[in-house]
């Protein structure tokens, strides 16, 4: 075969494989959004690409009026938003200290920091829950925020970013009489915005999608989060009456804004995930 034709064919094959895989990957998400406009009966009718008899936002209307969905949404937004603000502050501050200061016991403290990532959250699931009930934080928003405000991973991430900031900038600010905290706030923070954005996305996403912890500590519509709420939509119904149409509307409202955010901020997200992987 003419090598140029062979070359052409392999490029075509490459595109066929990559594109069909990509379509397969997004298919369940497309199915979810498409189904959110159908009735439950239509969702369970083959083939799935049949359009609904009537295009309507009915599932969304029911979701917003008959279900405490708006509460769940606001709760999730508040937990994820507040925890993100604290994480950004505490992790960048500690990351700054580990990146730019020499102090006694620094090495051992750093090993403790890294070692803490070894504790699987599941080990402490039960004792942490017991602790929460002892300090009356069960069903309290603090249980979704306070324990998660300074994750070791975030400190490690910020340390990597801050190490790249030239130390001379700090020194000259110090000669100008700036306090250490001012150096952090006015010299370091503006220079590590990409790192902060990355950490913000990862933290927000982690809190937004978390399931097992809110499932345990939160009860009642005034406090539960979106994933827990959506799961209860199914568990509360009898098998024959599971409101799949409304659940698909809810699932779309949880996922679609986050997917859009991700596509817009993809670069930051990926750099955060790979910062540990490439070094080494």
């Amino acid at each position, binding site marked *: 075969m003419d090598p140029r034709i062979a070359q052409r064919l392999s490029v075509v094959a*490459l*595109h066929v494989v990559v594109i069909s*895989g*990509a379509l397969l*990957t997004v298919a*369940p998400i497309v*199915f979810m959004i498409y*189904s959110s406009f159908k009735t439950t009966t239509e*969702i*369970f*009718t*083959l*083939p*799935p690409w049949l359009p609904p008899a009537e295009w309507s936002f009915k599932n969304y209307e029911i979701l917003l009026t008959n279900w405490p969905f708006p509460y769940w949404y606001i709760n999730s937004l508040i937990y994820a938003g507040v925890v993100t603000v604290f994480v950004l502050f505490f992790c960048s501050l500690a990351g700054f*200290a580990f990146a730019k*200061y020499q*102090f006694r016991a620094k090495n051992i403290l750093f*090993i403790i920091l*890294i070692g*803490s*990532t*070894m504790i*699987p959250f*599941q*080990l*402490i*699931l*039960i*004792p*942490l*829950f*017991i602790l929460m009930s002892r300090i009356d934080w069960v069903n309290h928003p603090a249980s979704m925020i*306070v*324990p998660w405000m300074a994750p*070791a991973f975030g*400190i490690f991430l910020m340390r990597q970013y801050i190490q790249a900031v030239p130390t001379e900038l700090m020194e000259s600010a*110090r000669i100008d009489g700036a*306090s*250490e905290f001012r150096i952090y706030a006015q010299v370091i923070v503006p220079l590590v915005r990409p790192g902060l954005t990355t950490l913000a996305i990862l933290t927000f996403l982690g809190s*937004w*999608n978390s*399931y*097992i912890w809110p499932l345990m500590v939160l009860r009642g519509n005034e406090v539960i989060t979106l*994933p827990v709420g*959506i799961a209860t939509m199914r568990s509360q119904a009898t098998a024959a009456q599971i409101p*799949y149409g409304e659940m698909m509307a809810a*699932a779309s409202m*949880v*996922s679609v804004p*986050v*997917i859009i955010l*991700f*596509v817009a901020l*993809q670069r930051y*997200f*990926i750099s955060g*995930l*790979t910062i540990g*992987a490439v070094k*080494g």
Partner: protein
Amino acid sequence: MIQSALARGREARASGGLHQHKLAPYAFISPFYVLFGFFFMAPSLIALVLSLFRWDGINDPRFVLTRNYGRLVSDKVFAQAATNTAIYAIASLLIVIPIALVLAVLLNSKSLRFSNVWRAMYFTPVVTSTVAITLVFQILYNRDTGFLNAPLIYLGLEPIYWLGDRSWAKVAIIILIAWRSTGLLTIYFLAGLQSIPEELYEAASIDGASALRRLFSITIPMLRPIILFVSIIVLLSSIQIFDEPQILTGGGPANATMSVVQYLYERGFTRLRLGFASAVGTVLFATVFILSLLQLQWYGVFRKED
């Protein structure tokens, strides 16, 4: 006069700064250690102690030494959950990692057009809520009208009982895990591919090496550290699987898909066997600890820095 006054002022400020300089880093790192001590270290120690007791959370705890661990070893449901979790881990290692690796190589190819668009599509599962997508898969797995059974139904064949058959239910969970994690692993491999020097490939193509040959003699050997890193990540996250089986199958049918964390959750919360569940947590911890040591070794944390 003026010169020396200025100099003295500068000195004073510098020494004040120095004092501050010494304390500041401790102040900056303290939030982590306070929160870690209170919410993670203390509960971890409580879990270790509690694993030696029998406690329902209401009556007084009773010291039973290692009897919880003894029960755990002989518990058939735990053995089942541990086996299931191992199956998920092995499936991820043997199926998801190779797919992600090949996908990364394809996405990295220079002749691929619009590669950013395809990349974004592959990464969407990483950010999608597990609960939301698991409910979608539940519809797709439906025996009589699920999309995954559609070809069999049209051909008039017996449809697969995805969520009701002991073996197929495991396959269903593995497909869902694969769907969710392939994109994430691809991100790691893509980052690794970018660190391979271009010259290696140029030299190989001058020598007339085929694409397959280049994959096995350049790409895979050069990616070895990343492959190891990703394998450990996959093992760690497999051990902690909860959301997928909890929502898709509830651990059923007859515990056929139950994971270790689900077992822990069920024993601890539904049955209030807090001491026993703490023993399960401790076993998990020992497993994760060993895997993490391997990971840290890879990160180079134990290498002397600077």
